[in-house]
């Protein structure tokens, strides 16, 4: 139940190709997150799975059955929209019961299903209210409740938390995670531009960029072994520091030389053909540490220091266009204009070729 297969799915609006051939296999009960910058096509892909957009070419299969021409109501899906989309003239109860009423289900069955969903989402005291009498979080829960009542095999979320304030977002995220545990057999596809939601909720993440799938993998996979520069910079906040470099050694003594700085040893599988060429050197802010010694990869002057209590962000001007960002634990009492040296463990360094593809890292 709830197994999805997308084969070479393409979508064009007129002459503009928005989705350029997506292949995806989603297992039953998985929580998959489509993530990517605005305009990458993640919502469009979701809507094609839902049946709200025509599929220009390619196939979408639910449990082995092709559903391209099947209307949304018959696909066994339920959708939670970004803007809640509640029926304003109906009470919460009727909002949730609407689908079943249309299908002419018996009254007691409807009642049982609605009350159960309300129970799960703690909506029971609000069943007789109109949407305009509810807060934003409650409205979103009603939207989720409406979807639960449909008893779908695939749950579709279209950026459901982006209209909520930060604190509410955190609590709703946890609720959605709990919901996934509770409805373990239901596949969930979740679209967001927020990589924190992606990292915390997903079993697997699909990173999209301009209609193309950049990488599919578990959150940790994407974090440790990004396949290319785009994914490396998209996951993790602040984004990975990237610096142009030249590739020097090979294999055991693989070395890259970041511009303006000394050569650095890396643990990556670099083919001989790449030696001498240009590449990109990347290291995450959280992997950088302060050092006074010779092992400093970067040296420079602190431009801005941000103290957040549990961590300190240092923006260091090392002679590149963008400052190198270092994320240090606790409160580090370094101020502007201080001269610092930054180093990172060899295993934490990333190297990308001139086309942005990552070289495989050993030990990662």
């Amino acid at each position, binding site marked *: 139940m709830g197994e999805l297969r997308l084969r070479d799915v393409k979508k064009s609006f007129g002459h503009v190709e928005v989705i350029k051939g997506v292949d995806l296999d989603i297992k039953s009960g998985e929580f998959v997150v489509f993530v990517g910058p605005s305009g990458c096509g993640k919502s469009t892909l979701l809507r094609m799975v839902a049946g*709200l957009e025509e599929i220009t070419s390619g196939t979408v299969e639910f449990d082995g059955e092709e559903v391209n021409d099947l209307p949304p*109501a018959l696909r066994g899906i*339920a959708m939670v929209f*970004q803007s*809640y989309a*509640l029926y*304003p003239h109906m009470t919460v109860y009727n909002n949730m019961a609407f689908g079943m009423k249309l299908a002419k289900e018996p009254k007691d069955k409807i009642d049982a299903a609605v009350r159960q969903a309300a129970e799960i989402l703690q909506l029971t005291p609000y069943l007789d209210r109109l*949407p*305009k009498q509810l807060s934003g979080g409650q409205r979103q829960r009603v939207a989720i409740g409406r979807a639960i009542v449909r008893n779908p095999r695939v749950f579709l979320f279209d950026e459901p938390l982006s209209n909520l304030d930060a604190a509410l977002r955190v609590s709703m995220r946890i609720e959605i995670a709990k919901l996934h545990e509770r409805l373990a057999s239901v596949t969930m596809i979740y679209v967001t531009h927020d990589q924190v939601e992606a990292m915390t909720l997903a079993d697997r993440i699909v990173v999209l960029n301009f209609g193309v799938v950049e990488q599919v993998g578990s959150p940790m996979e994407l974090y440790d072994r990004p396949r290319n520069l785009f994914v490396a910079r998209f996951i993790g906040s602040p984004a990975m520091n990237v610096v142009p470099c030249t590739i020097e050694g090979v294999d055991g003594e693989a070395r890259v030389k970041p511009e303006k700085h000394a050569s650095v040893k890396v643990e990556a599988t670099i083919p001989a053909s790449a030696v001498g060429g240009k590449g990109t050197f990347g290291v995450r802010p959280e992997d950088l540490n302060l050092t006074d010694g010779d092992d400093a990869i970067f040296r420079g002057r602190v431009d801005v220091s941000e103290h957040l209590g549990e961590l300190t962000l240092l923006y260091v001007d090392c002679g590149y266009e963008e400052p190198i960002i270092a994320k240090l634990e606790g409160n580090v009492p370094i101020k502007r204009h201080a001269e610092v040296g930054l180093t990172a463990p060899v295993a934490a360094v990333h190297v990308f070729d001139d086309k942005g593809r990552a070289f495989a890292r050993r030990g990662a």
Partner: protein
Amino acid sequence: MARVRRRKGRWGQYFVHASVVLIVLIWTIPTIGILVTSFRHKDAIAVSGWWTALTTSQQNFIAHSADPSTQVQENGKYVIKGNVLTANESGVVAFGTKIMKPKEFKAGETAPLPDGGSLTINRDGSYQMVSDTSFAADSSRRLYYTASQPPTFTLVNYSHVLTAAGVGQSFINSLTVAVPATVIPILIAAYAAYALSWMRFPGRGLLLAVVVGLLVVPLQMSLIPLLKLYNNVGEFFGVPAKTYLGIWLAHTGFGLPLAIYLLRNYIGTLPNEIMESARVDGATDFEIFVRIVLPLSVPALASFAIFQFLWVWNDLLVAIVFLGQQDNQLVLTGRLRALLGSRGGDWEILTTSAFVSIVVPLIVFFSLQRYLVRGLLAGSVKGG
């Protein structure tokens, strides 16, 4: 600097308020005038404007003294008595015996008569002409006096209009025309508006352009061709050409372009996600229309209903062309026009019938007004 700006702002506000009040007055004064006139007696309307009826005013009148044959003898003098006042006047203020000086004497004073004798007119209008000698047979004279007139109103006009033959029946006829002529366009237009805004089909744009274009067509242009068509159809089917069905269809046809346009614009603003959500819930287009779009369109439906009802209720031309003049078909506007008479200047009938006719549209307006609700979509989508 700031002080000057603030002062200018306040004067600006005063100016805006004053102009608003002025515009309101300009709008409502004529209506008040008509209302007041409808309560005045026909003769009063002919003589003075309605604004004089609101307060006690003073007017100059002429009365004739009683015939000399009524003179009596009292205390050795010859006396003629009488009362100058007529029904609408209440108190003599001044009087005179010569046309050049009609206010020469105050009420209660004694004025010398040119032929001898004296005249006294009292406040209550009673007068005496006293003379030592008998009054000559032809000495009845004109008495000029100024009397005050309190506001007097009468319901005579209303009773005349309301009980005139056939008005009650015409009321019903008008309702029989107006109600279906409002309901039928709404039914048709709502479907059309939903299809034109939310369904995709070839030729949609062209159809919409045609509807908007029809908004411009003047009704008078199509009256005669339409009547010819009705006559032909009537001949073909052996039914009379002038029936209620005919006028319902005519009003529907004339009202549809506006209805479709208005409703389509409103329905197009409904949030797309609500309808998509209903689609995911398994609703067909028809179910979405009936259960979601229609309840949410009530403000637009109510506004159009008010417009259309008012227009049809007040219409005379279409009713005369498409309905007959018999008792069971003549509408209220036609009946009132017949009441007016050939002179057309009977203001007391005109103004009264205007107000008699207004009652029903007012009822319709006030009962539908509560459906013109703002914030009908509140709470459904983010931002609403």
